[in-house]
């Protein structure tokens, strides 16, 4: 299977028999060949009818549960959404990509996704980060070997974390996702100037340290 950019905003995937692409529902723009689309239930997602507890958990995870579909068959499918920029990220099986489910446009069928709680990543601080930055209490981890297409407003730049740059700081609104062994911590640099309204406007920051790559978008708007 091949997943590449047709242009900055359109993703082109070539599917051969026996392969499948998981994509956000409604993101198909057009296709050629013999391709079928079926709804897809993400593991660990809503799980309808799986009991009261799972139902409650499903509701809590609502922000991270977006409708997905599977494209199978033989042909070429083009995906896009709301004119947002598409970033193609290759996973080589060694590290996990952490990204909000809302940003996932499509990924190869042999890539696994799971919803993880931010508090499992950074304890209470992680949960606070989710609440403060408006990202919710859950995020999505993508693992395995394959290609993932991620959406951003205005395109992204990737920054390497580790080595000469042990710590990278990102505006929470511009943060897209990260790959590798990275710890994310929310830091509130609220000083006297911010309290009296003379701050620099950069009071909330995400601090990333460890080893890996972080993607940042050219906008502080969430789509």
């Amino acid at each position, binding site marked *: 299977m091949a997943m590449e950019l047709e242009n900055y905003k359109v993703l082109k995937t070539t599917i051969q028999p026996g392969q499948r692409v998981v994509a956000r529902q409604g993101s198909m723009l057009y296709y050629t060949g013999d391709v079928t689309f079926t709804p897809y239930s993400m593991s660990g997602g809503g799980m309808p009818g799986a009991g009261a507890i799972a139902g409650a958990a499903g509701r809590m995870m609502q922000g991270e549960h977006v409708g997905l579909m599977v494209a199978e068959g033989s042909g070429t499918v083009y995906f896009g959404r709301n004119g947002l920029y598409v970033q193609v990220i290759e996973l080589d099986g060694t590290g996990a990509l952490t990204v909000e489910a809302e940003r996932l446009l499509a990924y190869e069928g042999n890539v696994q996704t799971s919803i993880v709680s931010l508090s499992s990543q950074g304890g209470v601080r992680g949960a606070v980060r989710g609440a403060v930055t408006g990202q919710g209490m859950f995020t999505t981890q993508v693992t395995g070997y394959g290609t993932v297409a991620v959406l951003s*407003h205005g395109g992204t730049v990737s920054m390497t974390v580790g080595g000469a740059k042990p710590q*990278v700081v990102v*505006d929470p609104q511009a943060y897209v996702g990260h790959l590798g062994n990275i710890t994310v911590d929310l830091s509130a640099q609220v000083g006297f100037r911010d309290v009296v309204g*003379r701050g*620099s406007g950069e009071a909330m920051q995400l601090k990333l340290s460890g080893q890996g790559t972080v993607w940042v978008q*050219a906008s502080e708007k969430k789509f």
Partner: protein
Amino acid sequence: MQGNRMLVAELANETIRAISGSMVAYDGAVTFKNAGVGGGDGFKAAFKRKMTGESLSLMDVTGSGTVYFAVDAQDITILELANDTLHVEASQLLALVGQLRTDVKFTGLRGATSGQGLFTTTVTGTGTIAVLSAGGPIIALEVAPQYPLVVDPDAFVAFHGQLNQTFVTDVTWRSAVGGGNGEAFSLRFDGQGIVYIQPEER
């Protein structure tokens, strides 16, 4: 990066002045501080801003490291000033480096109707300026004495050179009764210089 929507500043114990809140990421040892009253131009400029509604909130970014700036996925253009003055809409200014000072200037009777106020921001001195353009890359239009230029006030970003700016109204009985073409107000430039516009109307 696809296109030019992100400004990258490599700082080596230097300072760059940028619009507050425009930082999207950085590494290294960098601090962000409000540039103070009036965007660091003292009380006189601050007082003018209060009066004129030409709002400009700048921060000083100081230290060593790489800093990324971006605003709402707008395109970024770098302009060089050599002992010159650039007139720019405050909302379209992203960052300044070098010996530059900002001020507010009366621009004549425009904007009262276009909603941009009667004043514009000027940047004077020698240095580098990053300006924002919504809707796509900025468009530079040359003005010569024999070729005056008329632009939409909502698309105007900046100008420099020996230009005389006038506000043109085209109010006829048609526009008065609501049958206008939507282009009743425009900015006219006469002289010698360059006018920068953006592909999107504010």
